[in-house]
């Protein structure tokens, strides 16, 4: 190792940051130190609201509107970014410090072609000419294993898939060969099989150009693959920093340990369903289409009382469409949905109130699923009144009981608005609203995917408890296999609108698998820092992720 590589690239000391809300400044980051050497990758982890993105942007000398750095210093390669003029900073940004955002689809300008956006940095900074930079872009696309590298740059962002866009963005960040790249949750929005490809591509290219990076994520297993060092943040404070292997093997702080322990939640296995039992919901040979585009092909599975069936698959595999068929929102083209052995009318408008009551839904985005103008009491009271016909005091008693069931104090929450609750609490209200109808069967559509791991675990435990108490049946739609492991009794794997494999959880997590199930399982990052390296060695780059899906 030469002297140059041991140079310190980023030095942040005692950085305090504040955010503006309601005319006052409140602290976001309370004095964090950060040191990054050339060519090194630092993982920054924490829950949402921990200030990881804010800190990552501060390392670029950038703050979003309504945020300021109130104290401390930020130095990049000896340049004081807080004292530097706007022009000096502009000269560094894009050229020596680059940024890869969480949602590539939102962060590429929809009005310009990818390659035009790629060459903009080098041309504006005077690093390369347009043609040279375009040529270089095509080479980078090739290095990042994008399909048709010499064509893809001439497309508009909306014409390219999410995983490919994320790699295009990484290529764009590389366009000036920066010394530092900030990766802000670059794979959070992607499916597991897509994520693994992007991870491999990012790691490879950062290695090749010896670029230093700050990798921001909430996913420990991901950061374990990418980072040399990990820094854990909690509500604007640093919890601990250590190199990756030490951190994974022996975390010292309680909070870090609790993060590690989230994945240990697993429910006991239930006895096998008797073969003559009538399923609560039976999906039988369902075909469905949006307009003339077929979406589901011959989907069949059973859901038994008191059981959880996890439906897994990537986005676009037909999981949510199946749910829409069961609820009657999308009448199937053929096949039928049965409730307790009775065929349900295909269209929800033709179902009786009692049939409607039995099938309830909890949504992914609690934010948008709750009416922002209604109080918590009104939200839960509505189905109580509609389905059970309760009024006045009785109604209030029922709502209070429901709030207690979801572990929220009724007197405290009854009059609040959804905007006054945290994400996890909102999701609990969603659960209470579903329970208010006293259903047999609840569809949980990605209910934990928008939540932090600790909060998500709380929701999963609550759902498990309610199931045991009320003998509920869940259909659990998810793409997160860790969630499946935690809560499911049976698993249905879907791909391209078909069920490719189904069975009890135990069997699903044990080989032999259907090749697609195998791919899904193998794509879930593990806490072992050598996991990605081993997997790549074992299978080769062409046999992981979407590339492997395409081969099927």
């Amino acid at each position, binding site marked *: 190792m030469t002297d140059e590589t041991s140079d310190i690239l980023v030095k942040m000391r005692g950085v305090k940051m504040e955010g503006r809300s309601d005319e006052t400044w409140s602290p976001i980051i309370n004095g964090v130190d950060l040191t990054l050497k050339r060519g090194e990758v630092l993982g920054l982890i924490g829950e949402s609201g921990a200030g990881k993105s804010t800190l990552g942007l501060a390392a670029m000398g950038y703050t979003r509107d309504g945020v300021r750095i109130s104290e401390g210093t930020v130095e990049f390669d000896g340049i004081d970014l807080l004292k530097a003029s706007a022009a000096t900073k502009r*000269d560094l940004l894009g050229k020596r410090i680059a940024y890869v955002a969480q*949602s590539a689809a939102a962060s590429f300008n929809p009005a310009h072609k990818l390659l035009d956006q790629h060459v903009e940095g080098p041309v504006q900074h005077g690093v390369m000419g347009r043609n040279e930079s375009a040529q270089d872009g095509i080479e980078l696309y090739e290095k990042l294993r994008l399909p048709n590298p010499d064509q893809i740059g001439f497309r*508009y962002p909306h014409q390219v898939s999410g995983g490919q866009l994320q790699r295009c963005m990484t290529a764009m960040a590389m366009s000036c060969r920066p010394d530092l790249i900030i990766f802000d949750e670059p794979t959070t929005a992607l499916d597991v099989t897509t994520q693994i490809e992007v991870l491999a591509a990012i790691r490879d290219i950062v290695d090749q150009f010896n670029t230093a990076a700050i990798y921001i994520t909430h996913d420990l297993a991901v950061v374990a693959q990418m980072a040399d060092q990990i820094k854990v943040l909690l509500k604007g404070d640093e919890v601990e920093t250590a190199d990756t292997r030490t951190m994974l093997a022996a975390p010292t702080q309680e909070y870090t340990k609790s993060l590690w322990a989230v994945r240990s939640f697993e429910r006991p296995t239930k006895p096998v369903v008797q073969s003559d039992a009538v399923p609560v919901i039976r999906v039988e040979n369902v075909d469905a289409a949006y307009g003339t585009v077929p979406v589901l092909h011959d989907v069949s599975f059973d859901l038994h009382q008191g059981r959880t069936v996890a439906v897994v698959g990537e986005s676009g595999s037909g999981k949510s469409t199946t749910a829409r068929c069961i609820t009657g929102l999308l009448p199937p083209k053929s096949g039928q949905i049965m409730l307790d052995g009775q065929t349900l009318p295909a269209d929800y408008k033709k179902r009786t109130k009692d049939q409607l009551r039995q099938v309830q839904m909890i949504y992914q985005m609690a934010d948008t699923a709750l009416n922002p103008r209604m109080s918590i009491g009104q939200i839960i009271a509505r189905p109580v009144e509609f389905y059970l016909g309760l009024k006045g005091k009785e109604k209030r008693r029922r709502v209070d009981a429901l709030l207690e069931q979801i572990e929220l104090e009724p007197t405290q929450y009854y009059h609040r608005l959804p905007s006054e609750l945290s994400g996890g609490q909102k999701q609990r209200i969603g659960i209470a609203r579903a329970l208010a109808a006293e259903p047999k069967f609840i569809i949980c559509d990605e209910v934990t995917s928008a939540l932090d791991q600790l909060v998500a675990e709380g929701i999963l435990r609550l759902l498990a408890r309610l199931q045991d108490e009320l003998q509920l049946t869940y259909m659990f739609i998810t793409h997160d296999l860790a969630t499946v492991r935690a809560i499911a009794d049976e698993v249905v794997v879907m791909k391209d609108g078909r069920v490719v494999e189904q069975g009890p959880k135990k069997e699903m997590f044990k080989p032999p698998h259907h090749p697609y199930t195998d791919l899904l399982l193998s794509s879930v990052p593990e806490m072992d820092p050598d996991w990605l390296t081993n997997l790549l060695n074992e299978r080769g780059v062409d046999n992981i992720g979407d590339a492997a899906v395409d081969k099927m």
Partner: protein
Amino acid sequence: MGSVLRIILQRLALGLLTLLIVSIVIFVAVNLLPGDFAESILGQGATPEAVASIRRDLGLDQPLITRYFDWLGGVLQGDLGTSFAQANFATFTGTDSGATTVAAQIAPRFANTMFLAMVTAAIAVPFSIILGVLAALYRNTVFDRATNIFTLSSISSPEFFLAYILILFLAVLNPIFPSLSNIFEGMSFGERLEKSMLPALTLTLVVTAHMMRMTRAAIINLLASPYIEMARLKGLSPMRVIVKHALPNALAPIINVIALNLAYLITGVVVVEVVFVYPGIGQLFVDSVKIRDIPVVQACCLIFATAFILLNLTADIMSILSNPRLRHPK
């Protein structure tokens, strides 16, 4: 492109339908005006016989529906009818100069109005967009506020007031432009331009605020989007961020406001025409209403409606084309 073409055809068909409905509304509304040409031309001393005879000559004694379909049939064949006033004048003098058709009467006036509208648009549209971009770039600064105050005060003042102020400063105190815009056939382009400069400037003041503020708002609306943050983090200059990254995505609302204002320039400039004695279609329209010269009134209304529909159609199509998702489907 197939889908864009289909949308355009759909809009065109809808536009035609709208025009048909508008023609009915115009016809009925105009015929609801109290009094008719016969009464207004004969004045106080009108005998019932004379009124009836003029009505018979002009076909005013026919039922409304018959007259509507006669008129519509004529319009569809490009015949807007015969101006009552001109026909009356022609029979009175015994000459038939061929200028009695509504089309012949309206055509030069309409050309003048279009000329003024185009001159105004050529000044006002770039001016407002540039002003809007600058206001967005220097938002919440003195420049931004001054721009807002200036454009808002000019839109809030009556048009004739603005016109007289401009005449005072640009024609009387500093004689740069002529205060009368009496243009006529055979003038050179340069002369026409010079003559119509003051009305054009007045109209510019009237329409700028709307377009400038929409440009500013549409751009600022986008400044919080992730791709703008990305552009900033690429180290681009603030001007480039706005012009290259925000403006192309803000075009749809701006185009719509421009279309509305252009439509106003064609249809709503009577006051300015009167102040500058500009021989445009607005004056003709008002005069024709006064003497109940119904064919001219109807034709003017129809032209105004067509202008509105066509401009809105163009705006729709351009908004669609400004969206790359529709221009380049997956």
